[in-house]
């Protein structure tokens, strides 16, 4: 299952664009665009998504190469963490008042 908007019928395929805003940060998804190949996708991404110094690095990924979780199975697929609040620090209250814990 690829990303929303990807359709095999257009003359230029769809690419998803990820931009690193600054050193020390992750690449973050910013949007998508059409381009004939990966070189042009990177150039188009620069022109479309970094006109105001929004990034220092760009990734482009063919939209049809992305695999996503099944949207209809949302509840079931993410069920595992439910009821497991002992995975969070706030679950443990007996140490309240003790410093550096």
């Amino acid at each position, binding site marked *: *299952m*690829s990303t*929303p*908007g990807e*359709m095999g019928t257009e*003359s*230029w395929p*769809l690419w998803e664009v990820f931009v690193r805003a600054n050193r020390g940060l992750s690449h973050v998804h910013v949007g998508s665009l059409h381009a004939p190949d990966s070189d042009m996708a990177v150039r188009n991404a620069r*022109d*479309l998504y970094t006109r105001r110094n929004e990034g220092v690095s760009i990734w482009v990924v063919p939209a049809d190469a992305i695999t996503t979780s099944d949207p209809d199975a949302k509840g079931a697929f993410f069920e595992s963490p439910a009821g497991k609040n002992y995975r969070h620090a706030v679950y443990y209250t007996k140490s309240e008042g003790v410093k550096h814990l």
Partner: protein
Amino acid sequence: MTSPADLSVAGAARGEQSGDEAAQALFDDLIAKDSRIEPRDWMPEAYRKTLIRQISQHAHSEIIGMQPESNWITRAPSLKRKAILMAKVQDEAGHGLYLYSAAQTLGITREEMMLQLIEGRARYSSIFNYTTPTWADMGAIGWLVDGAAICNQVPLCRASYGPYGRAMVRICKEESFHQRQGFEILLELMQGTEAQREMAQGAVDRWYWPSLMMFGPPDDQSPNSAQSMAWNIKRFSNDDLRQRFVGMLVPQAEVLGVTLPDPNLRFNDATGQYDMSEIDWTEFNEVLAGRGPANAERLRRRREAHEDGAWVREAAAEYARKQALKSAA
């Protein structure tokens, strides 16, 4: 593996044909909580259609909106003004592309949207069917047209459809430069010679009423507004936004030293709103119906650009195909 378009159709069928109301209930619940709908969620067909229409019209407006200003790039009065105008027109192209991408996530191709535009099957904002005879029109477009657009667009950043809201956030960040540069053009003209002041006032006279029409028909004649507001796509009524806009313009006009061309415009202490003359909705409807000053010219140029650029798109696709074959060999 199915494409998202197939999925959405399958989702709609599951939600509607099986009589399963769970999908609708989930949708209603997300709307009630003022949460966001994302591309693969089930959504009512009418919601999908409304969004495709609204987002694609918005995208078309950005693309057609490049024309009245690109007219002036070669004639802008200095190298700095040319560079600024080019940056602005490039932004409009970018805004169109963000919006086409957002619309695509609803299951329509960009090529189909482009065809709807050049074949005259889709609408775009009527404002771009007016002509730009003087340099001061660049100022008035930035101040009034982009100003009205910002007023309309800021609430759209919270539209219930996620990709639309996210596109609008990017767009709004960039629009404020557009409005300020327009204001500055007018301010410089108003501080210039008598002829320059007349030119600035003339442009304000031309663009004031059309910019008020950008908010759409009065609330009691806007049939789709209620549904769009119930879906959290639209947040404020046409008349509310128009009032807010006029409230911002009045003090700005004073700074500029221009007169807003409405003798009946004054603040009403009793209602807390601006009283104003009746808008000429006949003109609005004429332009909407394709009989504005430049409707035919705008579409003709868009169609030419699309057709003249076909060989570039095909050549790039062919080059990419050959390179892929080479690297596979």
